[in-house]
């Protein structure tokens, strides 16, 4: 028997809401969405945690301009605080080294982090999910029973096809879905709104492609002044009222 599984619920019991930012496809802006959402929630006064579950390509620390820091030990490990957010990531242990792990090892590392991390009392835990709809998504659903999913897509047919598949799987698993968000919206291309609304989950809004976003990566003050953050703030209103 794996003794870690029985303790994960205890670790998460003082967290009011867990928001898993997913989407299936890589490169649609899941990590930026998760990071900026956590910053906005913290700015609004909510006690916020941020968990980067992308073990093979962790990027939240780069977006936040945070250096990997070995978490302190206190009856487990305590996530270091970054810009007012309790931040946990595999980079605290892997540094900037590549993590060549797969399958059962990814599951084991996920279970380990969830079993030993003491988040304390939080209003929100935002989880940056890796691309793909396999192991990590199934583990998130299995291990974080109160996780609600926010799905990010672009208007691209390729991204929409993947998000449809993910959505269908989450519905089958009876997971709560907050809604979908179209990122990198191009004014001259068709909106994903109609297609997403047809899937029967709330469409949370569109965020226009923001050329200024790249120049603000690593600088949270700049990030919060981007048009992307402005767009996400509107979406956040719907997330907060969806409880």
């Amino acid at each position: 028997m794996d003794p870690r599984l029985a303790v994960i619920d205890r670790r998460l019991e003082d967290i009011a809401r867990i928001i898993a930012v997913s989407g299936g496809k890589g490169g649609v802006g899941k990590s930026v969405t998760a990071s900026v959402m956590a910053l906005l929630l913290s700015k609004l006064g909510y006690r916020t945690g941020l968990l980067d579950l992308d073990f093979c390509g962790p990027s939240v620390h780069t977006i936040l301009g945070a250096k990997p820091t070995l978490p302190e030990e206190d009856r487990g490990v305590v996530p270091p605080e970054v810009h007012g957010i309790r931040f946990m990531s595999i980079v605290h242990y892997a540094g900037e080294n590549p993590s060549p792990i797969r399958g059962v090892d990814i599951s084991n590392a996920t279970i380990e982090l969830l079993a030993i991390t003491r988040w304390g009392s939080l209003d929100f835990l935002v989880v940056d999910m890796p691309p793909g709809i396999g192991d990590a998504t199934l583990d998130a659903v299995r291990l974080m029973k109160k996780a609600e999913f926010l799905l990010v897509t672009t208007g691209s047919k390729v991204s929409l096809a993947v998000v449809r598949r993910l959505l269908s799987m989450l519905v089958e698993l009876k997971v709560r879905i907050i809604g979908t968000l179209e990122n990198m919206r191009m004014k001259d291309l068709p909106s994903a709104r109609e297609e997403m609304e047809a899937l029967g989950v709330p469409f949370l809004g569109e965020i226009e492609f923001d050329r200024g976003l790249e120049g603000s990566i690593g600088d949270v003050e700049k990030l919060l002044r981007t048009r992307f953050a402005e767009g996400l703030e509107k979406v956040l209103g719907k997330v907060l009222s969806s409880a």
Partner: protein
Amino acid sequence: MHELALAEGIVATALKEAERAGLKVTEICVRMGELQQIDEELFKSVLRDIIKVEDERVREAEVVFLKEEAVLRCRVCGHEWTFGESMGNLSEEDVELIHFVPEMAHIYIGCPECGSPDFEITKGRGIWIEYIKGERWTPGSP
């Protein structure tokens, strides 16, 4: 102390099993895999301490400890070796990082034959409950 978090998992699992099966736990057998480099004495002492103050269905349980050597098998060339053979190449810091998340071994260890970090941890990853023994229990019974 990270060991406490793992010890809590053992007690929580034992209690869950006791509740599920209507038992009072008499013995818990814990296997300690070498890769996680648990501080054995500290872990044993912490586990025994928290058991004493747990629910009455668990608090009198004896704990039996087993140690398991960590064995790794390369997925590329099939070579099998022990973690002990790789220990000499690791710094104290590497070992500490593996202690927290044993899968970090893939970063700091390569196959001694072909150098690949793509290997399986076939035995001895970390803490595991081998078995839980109990006797029938009704609330209020000694």
